[in-house]
């Protein structure tokens, strides 16, 4: 037994990722002379099995009690190495990573500079590791339930998987019905399955599953706690319809004074509905909802001599007195599956979406072509003068995608294929139509996609490479002005209808969810995953996972796959029943604490409270940390004037020597 730190330092070559810019041997040699460094070695891949074995052997044979790995970012392999040293009986918090790859070898070119910096970073790690303290992680029970926010196909799939595994699921959906975007689609590419036909059984399963509690027309308002122990507050908005009584017969909607006078969101504004409505016939739950923004009774306080819906409802389900309801429950994990918005085509004014009724978006096309859509599946457009069956049709791709001018540099990944699908469907409905597709590139990368694209082309759909610059009206026709970039020919294509293949965008209201769950956005403004490759469904917040298009554009198979992945990840704490709580929590030196409560005011988790203690006969107030709630952010510590509260592993006495090491000439 010894108090003396015996440090083992391991410099990783990372193949040539590090050693190309950092002289790893020189770093090791330098480190050898740093205080308490007992061994300093280099190895090609420290994270490999033999690399870890090297550390373990030294711990065993050389009696090391501190380990530093100079390698990639601690965000990559800190856990790996913690586990390795722990396996050898060392406290896992006696490990420090010096990040000499992401923040050194990869960002500097000069070997001298890289090596000099790596030495400093290693010296800083040595300075800190000497002063680290052993920490014990504690475990708490995990609530065997999950919250899923958003009930599109991603949310539905994740819910079913988790519920099937035997855990309780709270599936929260903002709109009156689950189903999401997929419910709006007609057919799916490339198999041409009917979207509704494959989705609705899953929707029904959700509704009938004993483990799933559907919270539709609802919104998550508060999330407290931490992985394993989240406390959720959900606001169930008033539907003004008693769902227990509503039979879904639809008499109310027919009776409504505003019947067929309100724009239907589900039909992308192309159809009409009543003020009391069910978004679509297969909605789950199959219950009616009164739209409080339009209902005369709710907006004006009266509806003729009395609300007609109330009159029509045999079940007596209408209740204008209904209030929002707050539901509170606990879950162990959360899946965010909030989906996407489609690009607002009016942001490309040159395409005239706002001016010409026969310029429509891909999503509108889905409704138009759908037999359950506003036209019953008949392809009819209004060209400004009359309703026609379009014979000349142009598709424009990459509208709002791959377009820096609207701030979206990414590819939306679905437009190529849905355009092909829609072209095919149009071909079926209007066999003599002339269909042209203007594209920049065609991306048909999925299973069966290229084949489908081929088939569509063979169906006499002309693909013309060019990014149209303008659409304007000439007589009854729309003119697509474009240059065929393959032949360098300027074209003015006269058509009856233009379909804009709009891309996918992050939801406008995603900020609310971000704030609720402390998520971040990646460069494309979609939710950011913990690691783009290795942790694609995790987030920086433990116990919160991502599924579907809220993380980035993807098609249905990818969405379902990710949803299943998120479900599996979310089930880890639920299945083990335990979560390990952060050991790097704040701790109070009660002897110096002056009880001012500054830390209490800054703690975002209400993890600190003032308690009365007896110090040699005097009653004093001091701060005390609830370790289960503390996340170790350390904000409390820098506001503390007497430095009495300190986050473990990030104490002043551990950081100040780091500063000295980086500042000094050593």
């Amino acid at each position, binding site marked *: 037994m010894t108090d003396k730190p015996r440090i083992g330092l391991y410099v990783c070559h990372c193949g040539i990722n590090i050693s190309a810019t950092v002289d790893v041997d020189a770093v090791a040699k330098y480190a050898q002379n740093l*205080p308490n460094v007992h061994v300093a070695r280099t190895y090609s891949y420290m994270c490999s099995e033999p690399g870890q074995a090297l550390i373990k052997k030294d711990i065993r044979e050389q009696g090391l009690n501190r380990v530093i790995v100079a390698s990639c970012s601690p965000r990559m392999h800190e856990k790996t190495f913690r586990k390795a040293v722990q396996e050898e009986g060392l406290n896992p918090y006696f490990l420090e990573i010096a990040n000499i790859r992401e923040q050194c070898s990869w960002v500097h070119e000069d070997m001298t500079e890289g090596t000099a910096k790596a030495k400093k970073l290693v010296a800083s790690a040595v300075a800190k590791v000497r002063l680290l303290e052993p920490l014990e992680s504690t475990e708490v029970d995990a609530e065997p339930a999950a919250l899923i926010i958003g009930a599109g196909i991603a949310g539905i799939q994740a819910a079913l998987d988790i519920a099937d595994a035997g855990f309780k699921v709270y599936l929260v959906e903002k709109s009156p019905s689950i189903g999401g975007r997929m419910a709006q689609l007609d057919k799916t590419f490339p198999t041409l399955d009917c979207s509704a036909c494959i989705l609705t059984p899953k929707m029904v399963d959700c509704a009938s599953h004993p483990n799933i509690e559907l919270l539709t027309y609802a919104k998550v308002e508060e999330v407290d706690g931490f992985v394993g122990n989240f406390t959720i507050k959900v606001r169930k908005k008033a539907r003004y319809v008693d769902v227990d009584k509503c039979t879904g017969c639809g008499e109310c909607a027919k009776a409504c004074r505003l019947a067929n006078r309100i724009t239907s969101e589900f039909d992308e504004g192309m159809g009409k509905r009543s003020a009391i409505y069910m978004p679509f016939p297969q909605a789950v739950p199959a219950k009616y909802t009164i739209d409080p923004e339009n209902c005369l009774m709710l907006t004006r306080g009266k509806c003729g001599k009395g609300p007609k819906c109330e009159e029509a409802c045999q079940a007596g389900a209408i209740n204008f007195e209904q209030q929002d309801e707050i539901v509170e429950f606990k879950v162990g994990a959360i899946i965010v599956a909030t989906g996407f918005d489609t690009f607002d085509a009016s942001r490309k004014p040159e395409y005239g979406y706002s001016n010409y009724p026969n310029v429509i978006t891909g999503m509108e096309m889905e409704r138009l072509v759908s037999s359950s859509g506003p036209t019953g599946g008949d392809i009819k457009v209004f060209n400004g003068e009359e309703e026609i069956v379009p014979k000349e049709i142009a598709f424009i791709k990459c509208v709002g995608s791959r377009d820096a001018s609207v701030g979206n540099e990414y590819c939306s990944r679905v437009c190529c294929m849905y355009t092909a699908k829609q072209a095919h469907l149009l071909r079926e409905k209007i066999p003599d139509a002339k269909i042209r597709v203007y594209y920049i590139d065609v991306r048909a990368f999925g299973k069966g996609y290229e084949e489908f694209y081929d088939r569509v082309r063979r169906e006499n759909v002309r693909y013309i490479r060019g990014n149209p610059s303008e659409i304007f009206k000439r007589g009854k026709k729309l003119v697509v002005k474009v240059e065929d970039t393959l032949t360098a020919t300027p074209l003015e294509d006269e058509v009856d209808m233009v379909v804009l293949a709009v891309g996918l965008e992050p939801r406008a209201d995603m900020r609310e969810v971000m704030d609720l769950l402390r998520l971040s956005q990646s460069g494309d403004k979609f939710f950011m995953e913990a690691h783009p490759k290795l942790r694609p469904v995790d987030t920086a917040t433990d116990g919160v996972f991502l599924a579907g298009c809220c993380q980035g554009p993807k098609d249905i198979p990818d969405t379902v796959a990710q949803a299943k992945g998120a479900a599996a990840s979310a089930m880890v704490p639920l299945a083990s029943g335990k979560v390990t709580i952060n050991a790097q929590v704040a701790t109070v030196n009660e*002897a110096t604490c002056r009880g001012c409560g500054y830390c209490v005011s800054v703690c975002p988790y209400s993890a600190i409270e003032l308690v009365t203690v007896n110090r040699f006969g005097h009653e004093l107030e001091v701060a005390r940390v609830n370790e289960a709630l503390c996340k170790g952010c350390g904000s409390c510590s820098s506001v503390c004037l007497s430095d009495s509260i300190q986050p473990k592993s990030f104490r002043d006495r551990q950081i100040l020597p780091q500063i000295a090491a980086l500042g*000094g*000439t*050593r």
Partner: protein
Amino acid sequence: MSAMLLNKDKWPEFVGKLSGKVWVPKVEEGEAIRFGPLSGEESKLPEYCNTRVPPKEIVFPETETLYCFQADEHEMTAPEIDERKIIIGIRPCDARAMKIVEKLFRWDVDDPYYLKHRELVTLVGLACNAPGLNCFCTSVGGGPASTEGLDIIMFDLEDRYLLETITEKGEALLKEVEGLLEEAGQDVLAQKEKLIEAAENKISRSVDTEGIAEGLPGLWEDPLWKRVSASCLGCGTCTYLCPTCHCFDIQDETEGFEARRYRTWDSCMFEEYTRHASGHNPRPTRRERTRNRINHKYSYYVDKFDLIACVGCGRCINYCPVNIDIVEILRQVKEAL
């Protein structure tokens, strides 16, 4: 011993000729706050009663390296102390203080740093013509023209200084500036005596030290200590500005590879001064600390060295932010005896 006259016009020349670093009172913020090395621009000594910070810092620097070493190495090197210094304008009380403190630094084991500084310094005192409001040197064995500890004493005769040598060191110093001086006549010496008398008469405050040294320990639990310490802020003004306070702390500091062990002034008025590592503090409140300060000066030091460790310079009275007045404390002590 000689008595010489220096015309004030020749002051710059006088200080310029001396071999060694000359320290004089420096004016900052409109006041002679402390002594500093001559900048070469001074044409005369400034007007001052005494500096706020005593010149003890020249022989007992506030922070002094004991020895240097390299981090993780064991070779220790003490700095060479070899600079000759001449303090011009030191007041007799402050010079006396050095003599008093030297007793301690010679007690049993010599303190090589202090003694070396002392050895290398020549003290050219300036007798006080106008003692300050709180001067009480005459009560504790000194006086406005006390020569104890000094090598030379100067008297300010308006346009001239009278310089009287006291030690060999003083003699040697005057040799260096012989040409600038002229012999002082009897009339001047008579004038000096008058000045001294006048100065002594100006001292308005006094302490009756009779019986204090013996009596103080008996007043250990006297309520006076609580009374006089109640308003104490526990700061180090009184002790840091005291010419006889000599307590120090020893600390290490490391900067890169370089490290040193140094000593730095400490104050018995600080809570941490006597606090054990366990947290136990034998002098837990300002009462015990104030009591110790007075006892140390007026009893313990007398007991050990037969000297009062106070020269009556009045600094602790002048600069105490809350008017803790040692003369008043001693009056109360006397009363309590």
